[in-house]
């Protein structure tokens, strides 16, 4: 295996530590840890958990039985059928433009957006594997993450990547719990110098933590891993391949929901994540304009982000320093300066999704706020990235902005005023949800595809939150990061 050919060796020249930077000598390691070979390190029990993550659904097609293969084909056919139906609908509805311009306008916009996602995604090719192996610094910002951060550290060190080309920087953003101790304990289980631990001393925000990490390294590629995320062992090796194209500034990996089986909410989120990555990000990647390389598992070219960091770290919007939406803001700036952004569906990671509705609500609010803030900025420059990117982003923006109003009109106002049950509208929503579910089923067989359908309705209801998000866009409270 690749890991055997690149034995992990302790860092020869650990970089100058910051005030709180942890040097290997400061903490004596347990004899047990000493006894470990580099290979054994890569196979710590915790790291092993990564390998046990649900992968049965990713079996290559040639190993699937005939029935499963046929089922996936049928599901894909179903998706194509629904897309064709949507196109058909658009053509017919456009004849009504003179009668109800607003309704038809929205129908056309939304339909074009949805179908264009499927169409673009169909052309997606993951970046070519050229065996590229650049220096990579893994930045893990942590704030009150408890044991999750240890798990993340172990999984990062278990990455199948030459140790001399891999740096791990963990930044404690002034956690008020025992996160710092857990970071140190986890680092202790690895050879000296393998993990560099930085304590910011006080809570300065995720952007400050990420920026500190970036400044602490000179590696060619910076990989951001959230403190509750775990890259798959081969994840990084795949992820860096995108950078063989010198125009590429950042590459997003595919993130699965680790705690998918916890409850209905996490199952719906798992399905939604899968759809967002395998449909939306694939579609964006075809144009080289992935609009958000998420903080949980994305790599950035240092050269691309270094000039942007100061400005990004202290981004202000409507007179307030921005806290949320760090990833979207960073990708946005990378795109703006002329770099391309890609998505690599082979580079996988797992992250924790909120498992209760309160946390989920807060997270969605944060995401909607950052979408509302970064959307106009993206629109202002995306035309430079690809000729088709502006129309695509415009469609997404208009459809997204109008959705709470159209939803309210079709499901509440119109039925109440006319007494007509919104059968056509609901069926349209159902068919789109079904398309998402079938797309999921055409690629995975883990029984979660029905959650993609239910989840679509669930997420659609959450579009009302956009109004609240816009109204409270200046409120920078994080929801999970109250200090």
């Amino acid at each position, binding site marked *: 295996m690749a890991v055997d050919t690149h034995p992990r060796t302790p860092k020869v020249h650990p970089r100058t530590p910051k005030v709180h930077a942890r040097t290997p000598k400061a903490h004596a390691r347990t004899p047990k840890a000493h006894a470990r070979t580099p290979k054994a390190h890569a196979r710590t029990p915790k790291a092993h958990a990564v390998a046990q993550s649900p992968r049965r659904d990713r079996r290559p097609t040639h190993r699937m039985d005939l*029935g499963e293969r046929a*089922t996936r084909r*049928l*599901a894909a056919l*179903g998706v194509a*059928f*629904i897309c064709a*139906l949507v196109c058909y*609908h658009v053509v*017919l*509805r456009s*004849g*009504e433009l*003179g*009668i109800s311009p607003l309704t038809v306008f929205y129908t056309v916009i939304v339909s074009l957006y949805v179908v264009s996602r499927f169409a673009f995604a169909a052309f997606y090719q993951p970046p070519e594997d050229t065996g590229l192996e650049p220096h990579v610094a893994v930045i893990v910002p942590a704030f009150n993450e408890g044991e999750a951060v240890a798990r993340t550290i172990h999984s990062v060190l278990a990455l199948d990547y030459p140790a001399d080309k891999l740096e791990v920087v963990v930044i404690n953003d002034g956690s008020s719990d025992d996160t710092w101790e857990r970071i140190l304990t986890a680092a202790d289980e690895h050879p000296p110098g393998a993990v560099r631990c930085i304590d910011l001393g006080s809570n300065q925000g995720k952007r400050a933590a990420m920026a500190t990490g970036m400044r602490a390294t000179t590696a060619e590629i910076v990989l951001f891993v959230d403190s509750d995320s775990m890259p798959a062992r081969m994840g990084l090796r795949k992820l860096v391949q995108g950078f063989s194209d010198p125009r590429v500034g950042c590459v997003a990996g595919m993130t699965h929901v680790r705690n998918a089986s916890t409850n209905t909410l996490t199952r719906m989120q798992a399905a939604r994540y899968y759809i967002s990555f395998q449909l939306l990000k694939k579609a964006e990647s075809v144009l080289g304009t992935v609009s958000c390389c998420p903080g949980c598992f994305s790599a950035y070219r240092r050269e691309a982000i270094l000039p942007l960091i100061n400005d990004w770290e202290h981004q202000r919007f409507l007179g307030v320093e921005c806290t949320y939406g760090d990833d979207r803001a960073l990708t946005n700036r990378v795109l703006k300066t002329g770099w391309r952004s890609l998505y690599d569906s082979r580079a996988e990671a797992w992250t924790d999704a909120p498992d209760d509705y309160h946390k989920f609500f807060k997270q969605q609010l944060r995401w909607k706020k950052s979408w509302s803030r970064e959307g106009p900025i993206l629109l202002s420059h995306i035309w430079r990235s690809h000729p088709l990117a502006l129309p695509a982003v415009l469609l997404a923006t208009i459809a997204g902005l109008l959705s709470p109003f159209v939803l309210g009109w079709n499901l509440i106002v119109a039925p109440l*005023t*006319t007494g007509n049950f919104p*059968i*056509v509208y609901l*069926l*349209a929503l*159902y*068919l789109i949800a*079904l398309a998402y579910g*079938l797309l999921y089923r055409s690629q995975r067989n883990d029984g979660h595809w029905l959650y993609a359908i239910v989840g679509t309705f669930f997420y659609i209801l959450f579009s009302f939150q956009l109004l609240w998000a816009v109204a409270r866009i200046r409120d920078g409270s994080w929801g999970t990061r109250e200090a």
Partner: protein
Amino acid sequence: MKPRFRRLVAIAATTAAVVVPATIFIRESFPYGSKRLPVPTVQLSDTEIALARAFPMFQNVIPTINFHDVSDGTGRFTVTAVQFAQYLAALRTAGFNTVTLAQVEDVVAGRNPSLPERPLLITFDDGTSSMYSTADPILEAYGFSAVGFITTSRVAERGPSYYLTRAETVDLARSGRWEFGLRTDGDSRKVVTGANTTGPWLSNLDLGPGRSKPETLEDWRSRVTEDVARSQARFAELVGHRPTAFAYPFSSSAVPANDPRIPAELKSQLLGDFALAFSSDVHPTRAVSRRTPNGDLPRLQVMSGDSIAGLLDGIRQLLPAPVSSDSSTWPLAGATGSCRVGQGVVTITGSKTVYCRRNDNVDSWVDYRAEVQVRDVGPRATALISIRDTHTGRVEVALSDSRVALRELTSQTGWRELRTYRFPSGLISGRHEVDFAVDDQVLRVAVDGQPVFAGPIDTSLTTGAVGFGMATSTSSSVQFKILQIQDRSLRSSGEAS
């Protein structure tokens, strides 16, 4: 075997979950064969039922009412399906029976068709698809028929469309409930008619900046002729016969034209092409009868805010009012002064010219004789008696303290003096008696027992009631005492029978 079976069941269920909703979706959202909406259930209130049941009996004239879109739209001319059903329920309760265009033709041409009791013509302008989806099921439920005036270029080849589709039009024609008329081929756009004015394109020269040079009457003629010919051809191709009825789009008949020659020429051209031409006047005055001038057949526009009582009252006012000397029942209206009516005396006061005219249907006023005593005529106030007053013109006697003038006003020729008579000196007085008799050909007038005029009046003035007025420039008042008004047609028909 077992898992394979389960998989097959799952695939079948999923296929059904895709195909069934997709089919419903296609059917609900793609009205190739348009949807017909259910007839709303409506209940009239006791008052409305009583009003409808009390609707007077009539037989020989045809009140015509006009609808536009029947939908949830918000236009001034749009009524909802529920309103429409309520109107029809009231009309059914009142005992109305709809007639055909052929029967209307017979009435207008003076032939005496056998009309049902309380005949009614229901028309629709614009040719919207709600005629098919909404209005037709309701018409069917209440047993009425209707006439749709369509703009031929708007008929859609396939739905969904705001306007009728070809298939819907053919369907309606086949149902036997619908006849169709024309509303031109092009849509009802407006043209630039002057410096800052626009007007209906059918009845105005296009002076628009979009043209290289302003339109001449010749250009207008060819434009209108071409449009009408094209729409006739399209209509025939659509419905299977040539159109017999026309309705002016966009109130073309009511708004003044920017070339005075146009109205007459337009009307004569349309009457050459169509047996019937309906106006789109918002305020009609009468039901269609043999006395209604063709080319301007009046229709009552039903508006979105109209109540059932309002509609019934509107139709009642279209019916001819009987010839009567009972001035207390006269709805006299003066625009600039006051008209007091009581005990056979009409008193007019004001400081400028005042007319007190009836605003109801005076089609029954054909052959009558009247005697009126005029009081308080002086050098500053001239008394005016309209012998024949219609909404297009009148014949009137103007009495000052020294002279009598008899004159005629028509929309075609303007004022024309029929006779001037100067009172013999020494007979100057503020009180005169005017006696006149008129039928559809001849007018005879005598003042203070002296025959003043006997002769024909303009053919457009075949009906019209007695009215009063005063011409003055200072604050004055004149009185008219109605000695008698007698309907001579009743007497003669009574003698005949």
